[in-house]
């Protein structure tokens, strides 16, 4: 690895080592290792079918895996999805998976479903409405009746309501207008400034790398490049393969 992350010794928040996973005996991920440090934004990029979503599903324990996943000193391999969630590993899933027939407010409250500290939940709700003023206007509206961009905001807000240690955002830009995606990236930056660590999984390589600190590039189930995001953008191999330059 290159860059300052190497020079200053820090303990990673998430350390994935030699992870393998697949569907019904068919391996998809091979020997994936990656690290995410506290309060970083890390991009995981790659084209269609590279295994990004499979990796996310393995990390969130929706899919069985081999190898090790350590979050904050806890070994996640062998845990169930709700146990991993309990340790603060929260997803913003691909396709948002909102509760369409519930109001925005109820969706957000479902995010805090597992939390016991009511006072902190109310505080976070206020904070999140400040972060997403659009959702404040629509808090009584049914989530399914909003535009795609607003739904994506709602999904991110719902994840934040779970007080995540690590927020994993899957294909945020899918089907959204570039201007909306740009707004969402700004929100992610604000979330990161607030101390939340973000793992951003994206097909849009340029977008993800331009907003992140570091990046990992996946291809056919393996990590093929990694490093500082700006170095990756300038890397001729990455440029040729993904940026069409």
């Amino acid at each position, binding site marked *: 690895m290159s860059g300052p992350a190497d020079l200053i010794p820090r303990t990673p928040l998430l350390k994935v080592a030699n992870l393998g996973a697949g569907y019904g005996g068919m391996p998809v991920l091979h020997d994936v290792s990656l690290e995410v440090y506290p309060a970083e934004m890390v991009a995981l990029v790659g084209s269609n079918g590279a295994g990004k979503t499979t990796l996310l599903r393995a990390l969130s324990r929706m899919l069985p895996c081999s190898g090790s996943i350590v979050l904050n000193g806890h070994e996640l391999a062998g845990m169930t999805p*709700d146990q991993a969630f309990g340790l603060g590993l*929260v997803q913003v899933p691909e396709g948002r*998976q909102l509760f369409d*027939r519930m109001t925005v407010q109820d969706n957000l409250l*479902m995010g805090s479903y597992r939390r016991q500290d009511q006072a902190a939940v109310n505080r976070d709700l206020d904070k999140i409405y400040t972060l997403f003023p659009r959702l404040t206007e629509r808090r009584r509206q049914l989530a399914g009746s909003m535009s795609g961009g607003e739904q994506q905001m709602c999904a991110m807000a*719902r994840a934040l309501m779970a007080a995540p240690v690590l927020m994993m955002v899957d294909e945020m830009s899918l089907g959204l207008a570039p201007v909306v995606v740009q707004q969402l990236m700004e929100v992610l930056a604000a979330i990161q400034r607030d101390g939340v660590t973000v793992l951003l999984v994206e097909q849009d390589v340029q977008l993800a790398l331009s907003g992140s600190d570091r990046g990992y590039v996946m291809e056919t189930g393996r990590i093929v490049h990694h490093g500082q995001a700006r170095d990756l953008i300038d890397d001729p191999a990455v440029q040729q393969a993904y940026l069409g330059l």
Partner: protein
Amino acid sequence: MKAWQIGMVLAALLLLAGVPWYGSDVLVQFGINALLLAVLAQGWNIIGGYTGYASFGNSVFYGLGAYGVAIAMVQWQLPFGVGMVFGVVLAVVFAVLLGIPVLRLKGHYFAIATLALSQVMTAIVSNVGLAGQNIGLVLPPLNNDPLFYELSLGLLTVATLTIWGLTRSRFGFGLIAIRENEEGAAVMGVNTTLYKVLAFALSGVFSALAGGIHAYWITFLDPDSAFDISLNVKMIIMAVFGGPGTVLGPIVGALSLSAISEFLSSEVTSIAGLFFGLVIVAAVVLMPRGLADMIRRLRKTGWRYFSENIRAHRL
């Protein structure tokens, strides 16, 4: 709930509890049937209404509860209460063992898989000597209709209080989240497999208790009547008619449909089924979300409510 609503519910409960004192024998018998159907509809409400899994396997729980009581009382000479516990244990074991594989299925596939369960149970029980094979079991008679009536009413009250508690609990919110978007629920940290199996088992507990009371009341039990699929259809219709996923809807649905059905079969006898069918069709067309939704929305939208429903479903 507001104070006047609680008052209304309590008044209705007192009125119902008093039926054996001021009502005729026929009314008490009708009441036992209607109340047990209401319990079944409430049981279905937990898995079908709140969790969103349209179970056709709840008549199996009913049958297991009935056989639990019958086997305990006839074969082992144990008291009724022990039989009820035995029936509930059978239902819970069944719910857990079959729920784990079957609850992986969704929508139509879940309905079909559970539909097969009651057929299978009929075939199995017909060959079990302990259960009287296909001849069935005759229970010791207890000629005390008021007691059965109050037992059924008590069971319905407990079932309804349980559901009311559910709607205010973390567990209940988890079930609703599963109904609204199962993947979303899993992503938000709901242990969906556990919750679904628990809901299925809880639904089974109430169905089994209803089956146990019914078996002791009727004093006769055979595989065909115990695992009757039309009973399952009935509880679904009643729950959906009243309003699935509401606390009181299934009760209102069960009691009103029982009354309509009783009235029709005494007035037009042989073609009662036809008229009953018409009532169901009209209900589905005019108020697909049940009485509870209609009452809630009728105040705001007035008669437009019905025309909107017709238009919304392109009928």
